[in-house]
């Protein structure tokens, strides 16, 4: 299976799900070609609404549609849609409206457009809301399942998708479930936890570490809220060292969530690899290298962390 961006897999999944379930509608804010809902709009024009560059209104209209029995996907770049946090907080979360918020273009991996288009704080914001699960799939297979899950889930949900292509990581027969993480590799020296665009890099880093005699366990944290706490604690208890790897701010993201659980239940040495400071323009590869989110960066951080 070739590498595919999760936004592209999302667009394809919506086409299939939308044909079977007429409750599904899409809302966009002049970025449907980028969020990949344009295909849905072409096939189901009566169920696709482009609200113009007005994200707060888009979210509110989505809430009203949800309260009328529709299943709206409100889509924009993660930074723009979650940037209208107050509307998400009231009109979606507190209202408990069945709105699927889709934030694409997660993180510095969008590259050359630079910081203004990078979603780097969205997980932290949404995590603070009591009733909004956060799902970030790591490849095409997982994205398709996550979208199907989002449709079946009765209530608000945040989907974080990537612009960049993602190499396949899911094992054969994989089934996504909220609050469950896939164990992509078993190991006993260190637990690597990735999410979305960093999962494949964790797998690659684990392969290289194995060659050096370091046994790394790799977990795919597609479900960022809720975490798979039982698996996290079991793995941390086994390896004694946890490394989180995410294309997001270190404050309030996956690393923050993992730190909260470990700190409360099983204090374990933890290294949070994340985007420090603001993002900037550059190639995605150069940016991941600069922030230590590529396989080489993860390997170096693990060696230093384990003092090996």
């Amino acid at each position, binding site marked *: 299976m070739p590498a595919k961006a999760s936004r592209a897999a999302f667009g394809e999944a919506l086409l299939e799900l939308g044909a079977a379930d007429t409750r599904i509608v899409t809302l966009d804010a002049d970025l449907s070609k980028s969020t990949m809902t344009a295909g849905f709009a072409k096939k189901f024009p009566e169920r696709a609404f482009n*609200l*113009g560059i*007005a994200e*707060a209104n888009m979210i*509110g209209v989505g*809430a009203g549609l949800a309260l*009328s*029995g529709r299943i709206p996907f409100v889509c924009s770049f993660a930074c723009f849609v979650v940037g209208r946090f107050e509307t998400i907080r009231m009109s979606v979360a507190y209202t408990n409206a069945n709105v699927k918020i889709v934030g694409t273009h997660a993180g510095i991996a969008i590259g050359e457009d630079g910081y203004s288009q990078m979603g780097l704080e969205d997980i932290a914001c949404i995590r603070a809301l009591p009733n909004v699960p956060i799902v970030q799939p790591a490849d095409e297979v997982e994205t398709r399942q996550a979208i199907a899950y989002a449709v079946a889930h009765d209530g608000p949900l945040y989907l974080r998708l990537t612009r960049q292509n993602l190499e396949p990581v899911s094992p054969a027969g994989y089934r996504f479930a909220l609050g469950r993480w896939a164990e992509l590799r078993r190991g006993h020296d260190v637990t690597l936890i990735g999410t979305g665009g960093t999962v494949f890099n964790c797998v690659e880093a684990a392969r290289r570490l194995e060659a050096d005699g370091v046994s790394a366990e790799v977990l795919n944290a597609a479900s960022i809220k809720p975490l798979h706490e039982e698996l996290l604690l079991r793995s941390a208890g086994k390896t004694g060292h946890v490394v989180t790897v995410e294309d997001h701010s270190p404050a309030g993201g996956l690393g923050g969530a993992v730190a909260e659980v470990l700190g409360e239940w099983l204090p374990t040495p933890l290294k949070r690899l994340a985007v420090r400071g603001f993002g900037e323009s550059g190639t995605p590869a150069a940016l991941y290298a600069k922030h230590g989110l590529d396989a080489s960066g993860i390997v170096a951080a693990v060696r230093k962390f384990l003092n090996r």
Partner: protein
Amino acid sequence: MEETRLAAIARECRVQIIRMLAHAGSGHPGGSLSVIDVVVNLMFDRMRHDPREPHRSDRDRLVLGKGHAVPALYAAMARAGYFAESQLLTLRKLGSPLQGHPDRSVLPGIEAATGSLGQGLSISLGLALGAKLSGSGARVYCIVGDGEIQEGQVWEAAMAAPKLGQPAHPLDNLVVILDYNKVQLDDFVKNILDLEPVIAKWQAFGWPVIEIDGHDHGQIAKALDQAEATRGVPAFIVAHTVKGKGVSFMENNPEWHGKAPKPAEAVTAIRHILGISEPAWDEYLAAETSARAIVDELRALDRK
């Protein structure tokens, strides 16, 4: 329904607004009193709704964007039978479904959680579009405050509404009513961020605008008739109102935007609302047992 009958219901609701706010010890009398005639006109003479079946899918929806005026909605809902009148005294108390600002998750009949200003109109667009898509025939009424429409999201929604759903599903099932009481929290609206020319603004965004006295039930009904006869676009009603309407010391006074009356003030306010002079008050109370009970309850509150 006759105008005099609607005015009488609104008067009862005004008394309940003052009563519940005095018992709560906090809240927003000014904007509740300015909007109550529109709310009563909608709920008792216009909307298709059934307090016994608050979730039926073809009901008309009322969204109160200016959520701080929810005591007006609670008073009308209790009068309509959504819950017992006695529950009004739980307003703002721990565990009550009568939250300080509306919460749809805990009180059937509330359509949207509002109070963070500027969001009710967008939700109303979605409700109206949803009704059109399902062919339910339901109508959506959204009340916005004058201070509220300073919010940017309102103008995003204002720009979108006449175009959304076109051509198959135009939002001509949506009526928006501006409770134009000219006062916001800090001061008079014109001193904070003047809205004028507000009619020209909405017209420029593609809305037919109807201008009325928002305390005149005949004018309210006529405007709603006219709005509902509009085809192809939603309609906007500018309802000129008086903040604190019915209570002389609250009228047009920014001080009473967000301050509850003390029990003794509440008794005076209720006397004003009922239009009874001070000398005639004791005689009135002796004859009117329900008013007497409310006043006794407030006087007891004062002694606590």
